[in-house]
């Protein structure tokens, strides 16, 4: 038998950090929050602004569900404090499109059934939008690689690839016509879901 002590503090807890005013520009709208400085951007969105489209899947920067665009670049909002982004333009899934006016990526995700439970989906779409903004991905292999920061436990990867490839294709961003083979079982077979021109 041994004695285990949890949280061994030899002193009383430190004083709590006071809240402070934090101004954020989200989806083109200015917001003013009174929050503790240790509030993550993710929690600021979800718990203080009711922008719950951005998801918490691990809170450790390991799953990508919390991906948002900060000045056009994709970041894990769980690894960033809200207070660090007072001068940034933050774009969340709610800013990419609405149910009535979906963005091309959002529509492609529906058409290709690129999700099941839908929980990783906003992060996947924000990540894909970041990938489009970066302009680096030109082939299927590159898209797979550059979309690998977003875990999908339902396993919708093939369809996520198809959706992103369609948008890349429609925007003329692919390196070559035959960069597409999603869903094909071998090289002789046509793709299951060819891109829509």
């Amino acid at each position, binding site marked *: 038998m041994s004695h285990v002590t949890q949280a061994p503090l030899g002193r009383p807890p430190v004083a*709590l950090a006071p809240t402070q005013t934090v101004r954020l520009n989200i989806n083109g709208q200015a917001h003013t929050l009174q929050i503790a400085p240790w509030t993550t951007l993710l929690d600021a969105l979800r718990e203080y602004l009711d922008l*719950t489209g951005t998801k918490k899947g691990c809170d450790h920067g390991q799953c990508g569900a919390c991906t948002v665009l900060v000045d056009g670049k994709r970041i894990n909002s769980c690894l960033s404090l809200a207070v660090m982004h007072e001068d940034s333009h933050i774009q969340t899934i709610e800013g990419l499109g609405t149910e009535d006016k979906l963005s091309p990526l*959002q529509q492609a995700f529906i058409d290709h*059934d690129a999700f099941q439970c839908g929980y990783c989906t906003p992060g996947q779409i924000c990540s894909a939008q970041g990938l489009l903004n970066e302009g680096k991905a030109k082939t299927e292999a590159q898209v797979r690689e550059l979309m690998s920061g977003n875990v999908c436990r339902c396993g919708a990867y093939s369809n996520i690839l198809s959706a992103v490839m369609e948008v890349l294709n429609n925007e003329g961003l692919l390196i070559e016509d035959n960069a597409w*083979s999603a869903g*094909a079982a071998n090289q002789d077979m046509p793709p299951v879901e060819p891109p829509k021109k």
Partner: protein
Amino acid sequence: MSHHTTDYIGKPTNRVDGPAKVAGTAKYAAEFNVPNLLYGYVVSSPIAKGKITKIDAAPVLALPGVHQVFSHENVPSLAWLDRSYKDDVAPGGSPFRPLHDAEIKFSLQPVALVVADTFELARYAASILHIEYEEVAHETELAKHLDEAYEPGRGKTGYKPPKSRGNFGKGWKEGVAHMEAQYSHHAQHHNPMEMFASTVEWLGDKNLNIYDKTQGAFNSQQYVMKIFGLSKDQARVISKYTGGGFGSGLRPQYQLFLAVLASLELQRSVRVSLTREQMFSFGHRPETLQHVALATAADGSLTGINHVAVAETSQFEDFTENVVGWSGTLYDCQNVELGYRLSKLDVFSPLDMRAPGAASGSIALEIAMDEMAYAAGLDPLEFRIRNYSDFDQAQNLPYSSKALRKCYAEGAAKFGWEKRTAEPGSMKDGNLLVGWGMGGGIWDASKMPATVKASLDADGHLTVSSGTNDIGTGTYTIMTQIAAQSMGLPLEAVTFVLGDTTLPQSPLQGGSWTAASVGNSVVEACSKLGEALLKQAQQMDHPAFKDAKIEDVEFANGQLRLRADDTQAVVLRDLVQASGEPKIEAENSTVLAKLEMLKPPKYSMHAHNAVFVEVKVDPELMTVHVTRVVNAVAAGRILNPKTARSQVLGSVVWGISSALMEESVMDHRFGRYMNHNYAEYHVPVNADIHDIDVVFVSEEDDKVNPLGVKGLGEVGLLGVAAAVANAIYHATGKRVRDLPVTIDKLL
């Protein structure tokens, strides 16, 4: 019937919940930001066994904004009997009661809940809560406790103790070729993307709206009603969207108990979300050790099958699953000896995880079948065909339908299996070793009683409702399709509502039974609605319908009309308006479905699959890439090939994960799963997944249920992991029987 424009069943309809999911407006359990919400943060035990000797909550309670620290020391008197804590799928034994007493039964056991004004404060306060423990030695290593393994009793609902038949010893002796081997896999955790959370909205006077992450709202409701003495009206559970389940949401998780407790005690709205680490603190697929021995006659027919499994369970419950039973069904053999035992460890009770039992059992059986094929000098596909079962010997029943032969034929053709050369290491792509392997499986086609209400309003909009769930399976979509087709309405005129205990009762979502259970009930409810609408037409003195019977009419183009003369029609919304009521509605009866469950089955009802896998292995680094998969599935009628394909794609990803990556690594010194995060608990990412082809073979079945559906949530996973392991053997000549097949096992 001429339902040209509304023939939705079998069409690849986009998900009706798609726009809400891609726009981020679909709300999950932790996303209902009700007013005056408090946040609860769970403190987890650092030890696996022992007891709490001291909790010093005073410094935490002194923090401004902290409302309460709940622990076993201050939990009010709650339900006393074990049965009050048993949920719909609780295994035999004594369910874990959160904050019940000082005893620690497993690592990461919830020992306290700190409730504060903000999430940040609750998290901080939880981190400084001072707790002392007396630790005693724990036992978490299954291999050390095989001698204590015992045969479980009846176990949980749905568990069938395996039945042996014939004489395996005799069959073994009769065989001319033999194989015998041990297989194992480690514990796995479901890890749905959404972490478990409950938001409990306090509405006054113990009336609660409980937004819960669950696969069964009614299961959660019953659980909290019994424990906290609440009425149905007081405990309304809502679960419109569930961010993945895979079985983890079958049982109410402890955050539900804690959030309801805190809400009732503080008379406030409370949210409790678990952390990813805490997602490793409850049910999991149990570590299982298996032994398989097979023997064949000279013609390759199986003369004996022996399959024994030993799995872990907790000290307090007997978690049982059907691991070995499938080995007595899938192939034709007179002599089958099956065994299933449990061993108690200091862990939380295991829990159904996608294709529970079958996923584990098929790993052993389907690798063994590959080994036997090699020992008998037969192609693995040919070997399976020679042992095809045309009659369920385990249940002594004919199959309601079985198109597994088509799965073999169409899957093999699409994959190009005939080009395979048998010799391990004989196929190459440049310097890469190429391996082709296969496997397959079988899963129950079940149907449970489910209640559905169909309601047509004065605008002609049809709302169909049932308290079922959609964990990503496509329930919203397929039920909308079925209802729209049944009533001859466009999809836009139909809304399917689910995930709320104020709706008609439905079973929890699991076992691949939702499509059959709720789907057939949607048809029944719509049919009753049709009768009510015809009655209304007759009350309106519409001459054409005066003597019409229900079989004389049809529903099309938003009208009720005569089959014999479709110019004789009345618009549905006019019927409602004429009724003077806001809506006309009907509910199906579950009496017949319940009676059906009591009767012995007349048929063996199962879905099947055959899966073909290509791996490419670097001969120096032994890195494995699954480059191609063809999964051919026979699951009766496919209601929506788009969402159905997605389910099977996901299953293949799960199978690859199980074969190559996924394991909860227990450090036995601490009795704790050490890789409790998404960085160290490996699951595939996009770059790991290559070409996957899903084939649905045609399989008509008028016996399994009126719609002829068998369910798809589990079957696609079966045999995938084994097929990957078999392909690795074919590529490298290395037979790995301990999954996952990580590089160290190949070097």
